[in-house]
């Protein structure tokens, strides 16, 4: 087991390296840099540009060096906890990102739990009552969730939550808590607002999960050992719970790997619409103003979050299913 975990962690390293190179390339692609757009903006407003300070910053952050060198500088910083400097906020990236990253993790985590709670019973019901009206209508509702654009659902739910429950519009907490340190009242306020993004983000993932769980369980239910169990007179409920469900549970854990990127993706768009204090709005601003270290480190954080999530799901899967850790290769 330990060896499996070790090998699995080792595979993460090249993955993250390629990811970082990819992200850095994308951030580098547009012509010009933050300072150019900053100077243009200042001049448009008729203000004077502090050339000396700009040149100092440029040199300080290596914008006079070739991109490859800067990439390694940026990458090297990661190992000592230096993620670069945000020009727009004039703060180290870690200070800008910290709190928001925590909220992103919170939203994603609650969303996954929510997705499970919804998808699990519905998937079981759909599989055991295949081609019944219940199956059709639940599948349809799931598909509807998949087909509705997240941002519109977010907008509608925000409006109706405000109409019916008086929840304040936008943000992940009531406005009075925005700049306050974490406290119990703030945490409560966060949880009061959390359900809207969770439902909105969860809907798209849920539909996919229901369909996959249904398909997997159906495959399992057609196998002969289920027929044998039934023929022996085992109670249908037990014949379902004891083995077929456990078999499809494996896949459930494995599914986190594919659901997690989707959830973090969805979280970004919804966060922008609801102006949540997560990563979305910040990311877009950083990308548009070419605040490259902020944007790059941000994308990198999201990627690391996903990779770690997938790692956890893989390890959990290896615990559940010995065949996985015993098979030598790392590829599926």
């Amino acid at each position, binding site marked *: 087991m330990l060896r499996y975990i070790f090998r699995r962690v080792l595979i993460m390293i090249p993955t993250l390296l390629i*990811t970082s190179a990819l992200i850095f390339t994308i951030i580098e692609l*547009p012509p010009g840099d933050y300072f150019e757009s900053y100077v243009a903006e200042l001049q448009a407003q008729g203000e004077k540009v502090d050339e000396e300070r700009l040149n100092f910053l440029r040199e300080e952050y290596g914008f006079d060096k070739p991109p490859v060198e800067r990439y390694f500088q940026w990458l090297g910083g990661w190992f000592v906890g230096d993620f670069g400097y945000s020009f727009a906020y004039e703060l180290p990236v870690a200070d800008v990102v910290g709190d928001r990253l925590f909220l992103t993790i919170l939203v994603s985590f609650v969303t996954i739990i929510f997705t499970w709670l919804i998808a699990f019973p519905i998937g079981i019901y759909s599989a055991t009552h295949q081609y019944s009206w219940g199956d059709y209508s639940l599948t349809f509702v799931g598909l509807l969730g998949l087909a509705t*654009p997240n941002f519109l659902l977010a907008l509608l739910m925000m409006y109706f939550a405000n109409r019916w429950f008086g929840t304040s519009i936008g943000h992940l907490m009531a406005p009075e808590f925005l700049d306050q340190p974490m406290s119990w009242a703030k945490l409560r306020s966060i949880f009061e607002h959390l359900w809207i993004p969770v439902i909105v983000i969860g809907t798209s993932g849920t539909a996919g999960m229901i369909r996959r769980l249904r398909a997997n369980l159906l495959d399992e239910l057609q196998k002969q050992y289920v027929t044998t169990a039934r023929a022996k007179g085992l109670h249908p409920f037990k014949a379902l719970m004891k083995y077929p469900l456990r078999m499809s549970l494996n896949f459930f854990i494995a599914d986190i790997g594919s659901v997690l990127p989707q959830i973090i993706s*969805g979280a970004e768009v919804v966060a922008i*619409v609801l102006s949540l204090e997560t990563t979305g709005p910040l990311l*877009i601003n950083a*990308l548009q103003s070419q605040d490259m270290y902020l944007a790059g480190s941000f994308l990198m954080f999201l990627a690391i979050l996903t*990779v770690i999530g997938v790692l956890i799901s893989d390890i959990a899967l290896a615990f559940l299913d010995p065949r996985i850790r015993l098979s030598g290769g790392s590829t599926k």
Partner: protein
Amino acid sequence: MSELTPPAAKALPHFVNTAPFDPRTIEALTPAQERIYLASQWQLMWWKFKRHKVAVWCGVFLGFLFFVAIFAEFLAPYKLDSRHIESIYHPPQGIHFFHEGSFRGPFVYGSDYKLNMDNLKREYTLNPQKVHPLRFFCTAEPYEMWGFIAGSTHLFCAPEGETVFLLGTDRLGRDMLSRIIFGARVSLTIGLVGVAISFTLGIIIGGLAGYYGGWVDMIVQRVIEVIQSIPSIPLWLALAAIMPVTWSPLVVYFAITVILGLLDWTGLARAVRSKLLALREEDYVLAAQLMGASTSRIIGRHLIPGFISHLIATATISIPTMILGETALSFLGLGLRPPVTSWGVLLTEAQNINVVALYPWLMLPVVPVILVILAYNFLGDGLRDAADPYK
């Protein structure tokens, strides 16, 4: 016991049937069976697909939408950018058939406009006295079909001097129905073009990985894993945000399709790879190799046709993701820009919470989005079942 068995020395009489014997009569097929056994694979797939009624209807529905998109100029009552400044934020007008108990054909009620001086809200009230019967195949605003066929005939329009807004108007007084119809052009094609790009990439990259195996396969596998592990929307955002503002809307359109396609090929490449890994061991591949066929010929001519139907089904299922992706990008202002009009661009108007409260009809473009995505999903399901007709 012993008297029942024949005496050992006496052999049984040997029976020979003199009737002519045709061995094929035993396994004779009825004409219906023969049709099935002789049918080509594509024919079998078609039969199997036809049995999936929902998928067939979704296919018909999508076909209808493409028809609408092609003949948008004729079907839309107004042009894309025709403004009606006297009816800004006009609510939708319903079609009626009976006026005060008598049949009048399809018509709409006109409305009276009043500016509410308290909150400066434009208020339109239906006036049941104004009956505006719709005209069909009528002459109205001139247009140029596909940019070169001049015409002025529309499917339906309001009576002379009146207006009809079945789905209301937006903040500039533009007819929503016409805009949705024109938006279908971009929204429907962007998925197809994007899928074409990801299809090409998926087949080429997956094909090479699957056929060569070894280190090529290894690298491709890693790259696919990396791309799949990055959350796609932030990456789309990043790619869309770096597009220079100076690009013309048309270039932006193609750039968006390329972005959508660039990140979507991984699933397809995986499918191609795993199929190829299995198929390349077949004898007919060895035969082709021995006869000196080139790699690209073996992949393209012998291997791909073996599972192209699966690929088409997979591609169909990935179209909805593209349409949703475009909608989300445009909604956030990072995708297409006016004057290019897609459903996502139309929905940017509905970005504001005021719209939900005051002008909910501006959210109507979401209806075709949902319908198209559902239709593609069901169609894809049907195609996937049909792709394996022997099952």
